[in-house]
């Protein structure tokens, strides 16, 4: 028992020490797909928490025992696939395969987790199966005045998720990119957007670094700009017609929100108490063009990444967004980026989001800030 305590204490200390600079992260930032490992060990603890579930193992025996940490998807993702965290108990033996940590510490991303006793495969994701299929196309829900509802109807639950594009990329460009915005081929950097040289080179550095410096993950900075429509935890709209504004609630990140004003205000009115202080979500004004909400947003600060994948921006960033709900279950999002500080010309990207029925925005907080 004394031996187990010492191993556990060492592992906990290492885990906490790593947390300061290896908190929630893009997968590629922490693990190297080119260095896979396969380990078999005894479970000492299951840490069923966001943003990543961990299983701790003892691998080997006697003085050669090594304490490993197996990292998995979030509790939310695993829960949607039917896992509860009770599938394993301390003392169970499992075999794990997956990419090992870039910093060569004993950590592995659990691509495959198999219980030795019965060969059961654990913690696989089946999210698609967990979300009820949509039976048939339903019309766009509307307010009494005919304006499209961007959020749920009264008594309905649901939000927008499953973005069709997880990183900004100019319309017409096709390049493989993962859920965090990491390009499969670094040679695609030059095709993504019409960069100015410094922005291109900085984007390339961030990509080569595996997005390790993403301030959303490291510092819980808000996902301003189009990034709020790229996160796996989705977004929700709350329309307040009587106050002539729309809230855009952010499912991931630090669960904050953005206002879109429809009252005709001047977004740069110097009478605003926070005027002169550029914002994470900028200052957004909008109007309806038919069934499309056209949003202009300016006055962003530079303290965040405005897209997965690390595309740079400057305070000159101006966004024109067009948001349309062509039917009940589809949200079309188009954004034009005009930032002469970082890009040589305005450029456009577009994708869709799907209605996730019967659920609220996931309880997922980057403030947990765990490794």
């Amino acid at each position, binding site marked *: 028992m004394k031996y187990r305590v010492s191993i556990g204490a060492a592992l906990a200390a290492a885990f906490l020490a790593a947390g300061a600079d290896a908190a929630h992260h893009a997968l590629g930032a922490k693990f190297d797909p080119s260095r896979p490992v396969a380990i078999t060990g005894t479970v000492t603890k299951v840490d069923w928490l966001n943003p990543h579930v961990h299983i701790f193992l003892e691998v080997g025996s006697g003085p050669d025992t090594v304490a490993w940490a197996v990292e998995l998807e979030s509790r939310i993702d695993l829960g949607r696939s039917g896992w509860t965290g009770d599938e394993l108990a301390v003392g169970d033996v499992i075999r794990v395969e997956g990419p090992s940590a870039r910093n060569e510490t004993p950590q592995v991303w659990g691509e495959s987790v198999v219980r030795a006793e019965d060969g059961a495969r654990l913690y696989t994701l089946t999210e698609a199966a967990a979300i009820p299929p949509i039976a048939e196309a339903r019309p766009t829900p509307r307010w009494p005045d005919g304006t499209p509802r961007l959020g749920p109807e009264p008594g309905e639950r649901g939000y927008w998720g499953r973005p069709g594009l997880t990183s900004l990329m100019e319309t017409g460009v096709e390049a493989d990119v993962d859920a965090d915005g990491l390009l499969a081929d670094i040679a695609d950097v030059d095709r993504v957007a019409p960069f100015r*040289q*410094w922005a291109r*080179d900085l984007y390339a550095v961030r990509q080569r670094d595996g997005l390790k410096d993403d*301030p959303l993950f490291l510092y819980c900075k808000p996902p301003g700009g189009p990034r709020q429509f790229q996160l796996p935890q989705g977004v929700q709209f709350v329309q307040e017609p009587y106050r002539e504004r729309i809230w855009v609630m952010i499912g991931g990140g630090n669960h904050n929100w953005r206002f879109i004003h429809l009252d005709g205000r001047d977004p740069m009115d110097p009478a605003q108490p926070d005027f002169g202080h*550029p914002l994470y979500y900028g200052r957004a004004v909008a109007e309806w063009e038919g069934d499309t909400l056209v949003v202009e947003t300016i006055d962003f600060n*530079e*303290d965040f990444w405005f897209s997965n994948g690390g595309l740079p921006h*400057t305070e000159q960033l101006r966004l024109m967004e067009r948001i349309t709900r062509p039917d009940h279950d589809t949200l079309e999002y188009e954004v034009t980026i005009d930032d002469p*500080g970082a890009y040589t010309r305005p450029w456009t990207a577009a994708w869709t989001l799907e209605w996730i029925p019967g659920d609220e925005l996931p309880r997922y907080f980057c403030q947990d800030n765990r490794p």
Partner: protein
Amino acid sequence: MNRRRRVAALVLACPWIAATLAAQEGHPLTGAWYGEWGPEGDRRQVTLVMSFDGTDVTGIMDPGPASAAVRALLDSTDWTVRIEAVRQDGTATYVAEGVIADVGSRNRSISGTWQVGDSVSSFTIRRED
């Protein structure tokens, strides 16, 4: 003056500087940098606040009565930097040439040579919140 007091003085001195202090993820030179320069045994503290207007990087060195106007050039192909600063009263001109280290980090740094007149020494400055 300790670091907190210097930051407070900067924030109170100029809203532009206050906004720039918060800028971390845009142009790599934008923001507030703290460090030191000079020969061993005679190191001097320096504060640089720089911003990017889409074309040029300009700013201020050592905000206060003895401040200097700053102009900087970045070559992002190798992350080399040249910074020129001229005191308001024209008593000194500084030329710093260096390389940005860990450019993707919020706490990136620049190290290199620091020239005042015929005197050449080293410098290191670090980007901080």
